[in-house]
């Protein structure tokens, strides 16, 4: 029943080792109390993955619960891989936004590319074919020595992945501010189209069902990366470098096609993509949601490298992988689909009745944990926070010739055209792009129908830093307006909350304030939040980024032929609406 002693080459688990895994002393104590023994090395790795900020949302959960997430249009709100919203005629749009900030700062091309890959997987894991993507980017000052390199790498990485995968990237944001000098933000959004009654969820069901590994092979990529994504940067950043992963959009494209075929075949009971700490988080989530245990036999995991340990396999962040619970009678059919697409397909375990996460390698127990406790008992904090004091009134506003002021604004890094960015993205693939980047929101036609979907991503961090509540409201309102401006009826939104270190009460105050403002505006506008992502510890040497709660919003046009573009004709009247 108990896990075997650590094998000789495995380090002994101590509080110091736990600290290296990002677990605070009280969190480690919690593990000891829960198990009644010292965890094995693999178990420590599993806890560190499950209990870090990235997976457990331990600092933000309390506040996220206050967001409005329901509405008659909502089929599935937060908690799954992506949100699902009804668009009529039995169809649904599935979408989410997610950050890949730290990896993109370390290796901009691959960091941004794998961010796009991750968000696309979130969408097609639910049975949706991706139809649109956006990206919201925040970089340091234009003259900072790293900025040009980051901008070039991030934009190429987003393009490199999305263009190859074949999803139109139809909008986003780019901003420059010195607070991002040491910590850029890369927020990637993806949306897909599914049949409303054919959505796939992560909850496993049935005992003794095969757990199947799909996609690319496992390597030592990013071992420790999920921990990195929640750690503040400091000068030791160079040492963390080898944890970068390389994306393979070609494999992802095949994985998409294979998964959609598989889902159509009726073989899938539940499915989950492997993101950060892939095998760990995906297996635990499927078991937890389905009130089942999971047993994994790691020697069956397709590996790219030799001699991988259980610890490494459980924490690997190799991309383009999925975990699925399969209807056993469909195994041959399912395997044939994956073979057709030259992808790995391996039964690596099964669901079990007890509340247990049992990880074996060559018959040896590597981890034996209560499964529900891994997510259910994860720490949750009510971190101290202070409200942001009202901003000091602006000083003397310099007087300037309006025409000159306008030229300055339009020529500045934050006001100039973003054509250089979006021309590197295929924004027309799938031949349904009705409103291209450069307008208020991008619009794609729902293939084969007259309907259209509009997408916008917005936030104004300088408002958020001055007044988080107002800034939160404004981000929602702007996204809402950008949808309306194309003629769309806003449906729902996703949020990507990027903040500094939540252990500082003033940063926590920004988070609390922005969430309050977002919640208020979403309620007032009937635009629920159906998915989202939180990225904290965006700081370098104690300097936090501007609070940046990006809002990605989705709207519906009943007749896409009536979509409005920003292309007035000569002689059109100019009308100002609003206050």
């Amino acid at each position, binding site marked *: 029943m108990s896990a075997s002693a650590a094998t000789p080459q495995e380090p002994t688990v101590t509080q110091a080792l736990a600290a290296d895994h990002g677990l605070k002393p009280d969190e480690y104590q919690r593990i000891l109390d829960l198990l009644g023994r010292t965890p094995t090395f693999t178990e420590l790795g599993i806890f560190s993955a499950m209990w870090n900020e990235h997976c457990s949302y331990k600092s933000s959960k309390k506040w996220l619960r206050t967001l409005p997430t329901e509405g008659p249009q909502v089929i599935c709100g937060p908690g799954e891989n992506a949100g699902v919203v009804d668009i009529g005629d039995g169809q649904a749009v599935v979408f989410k936004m997610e950050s890949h900030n730290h990896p993109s700062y370390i290796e901009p091309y691959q960091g941004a590319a794998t961010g796009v890959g991750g968000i696309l997987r979130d969408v097609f894991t639910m049975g949706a074919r991706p139809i649109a993507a956006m990206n919201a980017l925040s970089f340091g000052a234009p003259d900072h020595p790293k900025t040009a390199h980051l901008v070039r790498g991030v934009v190429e990485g987003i393009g490199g992945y999305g263009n190859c995968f074949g999803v139109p990237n139809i909008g986003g944001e780019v901003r420059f501010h010195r607070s991002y000098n040491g910590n850029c933000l890369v927020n990637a959004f993806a949306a897909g189209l599914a049949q409303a009654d054919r959505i796939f969820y992560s909850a496993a069901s049935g005992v003794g069902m095969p757990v199947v590994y799909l996609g690319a092979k496992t390597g030592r990529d990013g071992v420790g990366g999920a921990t990195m994504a929640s750690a503040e940067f400091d000068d030791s950043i160079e040492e963390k470098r080898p944890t970068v*992963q390389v994306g*393979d959009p070609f494999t992802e494209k095949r994985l998409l096609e294979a998964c959609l075929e598989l889902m159509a075949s009726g073989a899938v009971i539940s499915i989950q993509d492997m993101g950060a700490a892939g095998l760990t988080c995906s297996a635990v989530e499927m078991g937890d949601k389905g009130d089942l245990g999971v047993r994994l036999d790691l020697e069956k995991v397709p590996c790219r490298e030799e001699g991988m340990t259980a610890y490494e396999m459980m924490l690997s962040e190799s991309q383009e992988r999925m975990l699925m619970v399969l209807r056993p009678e469909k195994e041959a059919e399912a395997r044939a689909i994956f073979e057709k697409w030259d992808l790995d397909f391996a039964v690596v375990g099964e669901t079990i009745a007890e509340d247990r996460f049992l990880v074996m390698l060559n018959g040896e127990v590597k981890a034996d944990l209560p499964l529900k406790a891994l997510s259910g008992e994860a720490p949750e904090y009510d971190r101290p926070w202070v409200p942001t004091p009202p901003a000091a009134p602006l000083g003397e506003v310099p007087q300037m010739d309006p025409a000159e002021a306008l030229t300055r604004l339009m020529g500045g890094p934050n006001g100039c055209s973003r054509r250089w960015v979006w021309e590197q993205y295929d924004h027309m693939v799938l031949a349904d792009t009705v409103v291209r980047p450069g307008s208020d929101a991008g619009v794609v036609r729902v293939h084969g129908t007259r309907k259209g979907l509009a997408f916008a991503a917005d936030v104004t961090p300088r408002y958020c830093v001055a007044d988080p509540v107002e800034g939160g409201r404004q981000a929602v309102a702007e996204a809402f307006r950008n949808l309306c401006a194309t003629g769309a009826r806003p449906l729902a939104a996703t949020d990507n909350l990027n903040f500094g270190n939540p252990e500082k009460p003033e940063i926590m105050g920004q988070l609390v304030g922005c969430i309050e403002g977002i919640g208020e505006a979403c309620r007032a506008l009937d635009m629920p939040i159906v998915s989202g992502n939180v990225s904290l510890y965006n700081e370098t040497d104690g300097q936090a980024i501007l609070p940046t709660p990006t809002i990605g919003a989705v709207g519906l046009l009943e007749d896409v032929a009536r979509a409005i573009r920003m292309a007035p004709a000569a002689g059109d009247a100019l009308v100002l609406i609003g206050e």
Partner: protein
Amino acid sequence: MRARVHITLKSGVLDPQGEAIRHALGALGFDGVERVRQGKVIELELADADPEAARARVREMCEKLLANTVIENYQIEIL
């Protein structure tokens, strides 16, 4: 003076290109190809006269531009 820089992915870093090539070779009937890795060569024509100074400069070029040292190794030959 000429210098040649070989840039290869660090071991353990995924090489999707190499994998695709291996697969394609297999499909063309070349069997027994166990592993393929793809890298870059960059050949530089330099004004330097002293090979050691050239090597030092090329090393600096690699660190600053030619190689992505996060995921790549490099190797310099002075010809």
